[in-house]
């Protein structure tokens, strides 16, 4: 649309009063079909089914996921906009939280939020003349395996992230080693693990080792979800990860800004993911500092 001249600027936005209305619950509770007769509802149940299969196939579990929940919370504690800015989380807090749908405890689940996000897409040429330093969309990939959760063969991976990630890196002309940080769609902790695993950051089952020692946290070698993400900042669907990727590359992230002040690499390339359904679709975007 931009290339053809149909439009000059495109606003991509998301807003929801998910806390103060019942619309999110209503949406989630009407996702289901006949499985409701067996007491199976919403997204937590189906992602928990995926996570359980992954526990069986490559021995992941809460010992891996706690690093994701706690790591992202450390970023949120640097972000005044985050819903959990003033609430720290320890590994014990994670482990002692109540079960919702086992193997998921409370902090494996994302937040429900009132609010919104928006970003503007235009041509690189127009962007050069704007007030803020722009961010370039360097690569894009999509893969949508799409099958029903009960018949899906991708619950324990590879999800759409594998092919979408390869396509995005290819378009950007870089390799995984050139990625400085990731903003991963994180409806659940397990979603972060399987997405990073499918991108090839670690082999199946090696996530526990990879996340050890604060890899994704402030000071870590591969910062992930630096706003706190959907688990600890706010849930605005795919807009939570992508807007954070853009803001980081623009250098507008205050106390949580990637670079020397958070003991991380000043980012040139940030990988962002979006995910839909029950791991049924993936979009991967590589953002680059202009």
């Amino acid at each position, binding site marked *: 649309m931009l290339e053809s001249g149909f439009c000059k600027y495109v606003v991509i936005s998301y807003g929801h009063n998910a806390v103060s209305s019942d619309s999110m619950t209503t949406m989630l*509770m009407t996702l289901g*079909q*006949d*499985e*409701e*007769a*067996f*007491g*199976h*509802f*919403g997204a937590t*149940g189906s992602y*928990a*089914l*995926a996570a*359980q*299969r992954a526990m*069986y196939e490559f021995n992941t579990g809460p010992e891996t996921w706690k690093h994701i929940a706690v790591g992202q919370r450390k970023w949120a504690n640097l972000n005044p906009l985050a819903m959990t800015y003033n609430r720290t989380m320890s590994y014990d807090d994670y482990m002692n939280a*109540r*079960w*919702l*749908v*086992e*193997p*998921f405890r409370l902090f494996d689940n994302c937040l429900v939020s009132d609010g919104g996000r928006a970003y503007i897409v235009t041509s690189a040429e127009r962007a050069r003349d704007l007030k803020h330093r722009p961010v370039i969309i360097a690569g894009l990939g999509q893969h949508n395996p799409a099958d*029903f*959760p*009960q*018949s899906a063969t991708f*619950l324990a991976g590879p999800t759409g992230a594998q092919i979408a990630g390869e396509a995005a890196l290819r378009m950007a002309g870089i390799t995984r080693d050139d990625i400085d940080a990731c903003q991963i769609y994180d409806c659940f902790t397990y979603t972060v693990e399987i997405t990073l695993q499918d991108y090839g950051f670690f082999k199946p089952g090696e996530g526990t080792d990879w996340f050890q020692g604060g890899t994704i946290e402030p000071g870590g070698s591969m910062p992930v979800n630096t706003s706190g993400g959907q688990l600890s900042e706010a849930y605005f669907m795919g807009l939570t990860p992508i807007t954070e990727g853009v803001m980081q590359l623009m250098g507008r992230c205050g106390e949580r800004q990637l670079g020397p002040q958070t003991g991380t690499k000043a980012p040139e390339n940030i990988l962002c993911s979006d995910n839909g359904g029950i791991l049924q679709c993936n979009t991967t975007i590589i953002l680059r500092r202009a």
Partner: protein
Amino acid sequence: MTMYAKPIPKINEDSRPFWGGCKVHELRFQKCNQCGHVRWPPAIICPECHGKDTVWITAAGHGRVYTYVVYHIAYHPGFKGELPYVVAVVELHEGPRIFTNIIGCSTEEVYCDMAVEVVWDDVTTELTLPKFRPVK
């Protein structure tokens, strides 16, 4: 008719033979006459070969737990009295995978690939749910 406090399947023309089978304690699935694929959920064409020639077969009722979860929260008030309960995806020997409950054992005893067999739960005079229990 019994007062039944849980959600009931939204039966349509595609799924009516399945639920009608449950009523008489038979697990019925569509089988493609072109490629032999046994499918669920029901559809007018085969997801494997797009063939339209379909027959309904009766599955023997044996399978394995592909994956499962334990609900500790009742998202619907009808399930409050059952917590904790197990929701599973069971893969039948004939191929299809279906949502169900695992009953007849504790929640801790369930595991992926556990051998299970169908057990019929006549929840109302109109509705029978196929549930599964461990094979003894």
